[in-house]
């Protein structure tokens, strides 16, 4: 088992004809992901990647033609909010948006629209989801992870790869790795993933990688204390980040004294979550 994506995932790639879309669609196909189609308005009826992937004008048509149940979004920030709504409206149940730099007011509107609909959004500004050996949706390098019993959820991209790689070096694999993204307003959060991992029989331990900004890690700590029976290991990036500066991710900023690494580590520790001082230490903790 795994969470969110598995062998039943039928993926449609929104923005499949762009250079990023094409490149990663090929990678996902190579990994064995069931990519059933892509979309690009005005190019419906064409095929990409040597006739392996049909292109549709809209997600609605793609869903009708292929039975897609998951979408991944590779379209530019100006069009990504529309793409998210389009997927939800076409009854896609899991929408993974990789797009970076979406305006925050757009994301507030998108969330208000999505919340009553029952569609799950992962991201935006995230690397996607990887269920090692089964399915990859997004851009997580698949060669750095092996199947196993550790669930990984993270706000960061390469930092996650670092952890997956360190785990693999020690022969430890993961059930599913979810990048929830570094934006201040996103879809699926830590708590959602922690609950999914708690319920997933394949997952025995969970790694949670946070960073400065916001209070989602603190909320997750409360959730862990009250609801998790499986051990959780943490890492928080940005202990040395200066306040008031956005550290690459739109959401990684200490504002008005809120969102510091110290507070987050304190909250996690108080919830019984050991917090590593660097990413390699996480793997060592898990190995013990």
């Amino acid at each position: 088992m795994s969470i969110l994506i598995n062998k039943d995932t039928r993926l449609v790639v929104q923005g499949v004809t762009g250079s990023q879309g094409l490149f990663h669609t090929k990678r996902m196909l190579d990994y064995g992901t069931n990519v059933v189609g892509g979309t690009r308005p005005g190019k419906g009826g064409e095929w990409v990647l040597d006739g392996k992937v049909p292109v549709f004008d809209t997600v609605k048509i793609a869903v009708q033609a292929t039975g897609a149940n998951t979408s991944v979004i590779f379209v530019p920030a100006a069009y990504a909010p529309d793409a998210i709504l389009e997927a939800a409206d076409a009854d896609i149940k899991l929408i993974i948006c990789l797009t970076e730099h979406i305006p925050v007011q757009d994301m507030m509107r998108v969330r208000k629209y999505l919340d009553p609909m029952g569609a799950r959004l992962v991201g935006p500004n995230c690397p996607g989801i990887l269920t090692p050996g089964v399915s990859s949706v997004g851009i997580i390098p698949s060669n750095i992870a092996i199947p196993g019993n550790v669930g990984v959820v993270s706000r960061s991209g390469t930092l996650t790869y670092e952890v997956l790689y360190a785990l693999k070096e020690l022969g430890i694999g993961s059930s599913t790795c979810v990048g929830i993204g570094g934006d201040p307003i996103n879809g699926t959060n830590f708590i959602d993933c922690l609950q999914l991992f708690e319920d997933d029989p394949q997952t025995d331990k969970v790694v949670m990688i946070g960073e400065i900004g916001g209070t989602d890690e603190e909320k997750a700590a409360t959730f862990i204390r009250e609801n998790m029976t499986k051990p959780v290991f943490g890492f928080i990036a940005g202990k040395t980040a200066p306040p008031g500066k956005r550290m690459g991710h739109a959401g990684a900023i200490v504002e008005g004294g809120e969102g510091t690494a110290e507070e987050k580590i304190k909250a996690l520790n108080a919830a019984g979550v050991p917090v590593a001082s660097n990413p390699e230490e996480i793997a060592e903790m898990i190995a013990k």
Partner: protein
Amino acid sequence: MKLHEYQSKRIFAKFGVPIPKGEVATTPEEAKKIAQDLGGSVVVKSQVLVGGRGKAGGIKLAKSPDEAEKYAKEILDLEIKGLPVNLVLIDEAAEINNEIYLGITNDRGARMPVFMASAAGGVDIEEVAATTPEKIIKVHIHPLMGLQNYQVLDLAAGISLPRALWKEFDVIAKGLWEAYKNNDATLAEINPLIITADNHLKAVDGKMVIDDNALFRQKELNEQRDLTGENEAELKAKESDLTFIKLDGDIGCMVNGAGLAMATMDILDQYGGSPANFLDIGGGADEEQVAAALRIILEDENVKAVLFNIFGGITRGDQVAKGIVAALKEIKTDIPMVVRLVGTNSEEGREILAETKMITAKTLSEAAKKSVAAAKGEL
């Protein structure tokens, strides 16, 4: 992107918020002329994108055009928190009976804009929030519905605003909301909104911060951007699509990925070192970007060592290695460099780097320790 007081107030005025008459000047002579045109007392206000202008002597009340000229000269000669003052705003002075705070920002946790008002205006609102939070009335705005009439009343009644001013307040609150929404602001603030001696409301100071991610559709604002006070290296990095933040330490860092870049800074700190910068070269950096990044790092005179921490995922290790080699051919330097390449094509990358004098490391901890030692001249 921060806007100047005068820019913010002009936007507010466009949406119906009353502001004092005023103009900006770049010279004392212009300031005098404006003061003459306005007549009466004026306030000479430095326009710099940092807080604490008042305490730094950047705001002065002038009773005559000559005084306005004199103060303008003094203020234009100032440097406030390291920033030169290039511009002063000359506003007609207002008699103040009372000062109110009014502001809209994003409440990240609630995923909604939050409208805040306080009868304790004129001072730093974060101070009020810290010491007497009950003095701040907060109303969340539904991002699809927008500000509603009743919410304006909740604010007005919440700060016990005299009823005679509720109609004016309604116009101002709605104007501020429209300014916030239509300009993709992350902050729109009037502080203070004053009650004048003749019992009207007026926005005498204003502040806006615009969402950088929305500048593609806020072209007019983008063109008004004042780059004074923005770090030169950070601007240069942006041109090459790199995210760079200047820090105070002596170890330059080049990392792919924001989270990993932060973690790299943290681990340097853990081993007694101090990062000179945050630098994310992004997911698919090419040779040119790597070279540009290296140049930016080395321009910082504090830098005593450089740490490359590259996780090969989408970014291939050999490509980054080639970029480093190319950059080093162009940029002659004796500063010691530590490189850690892991993941996709990292073997090939390491081979390419063998021809350089770079210090290599396999783990992040090892790389951090070696960088700290190198910066101390111990390696």
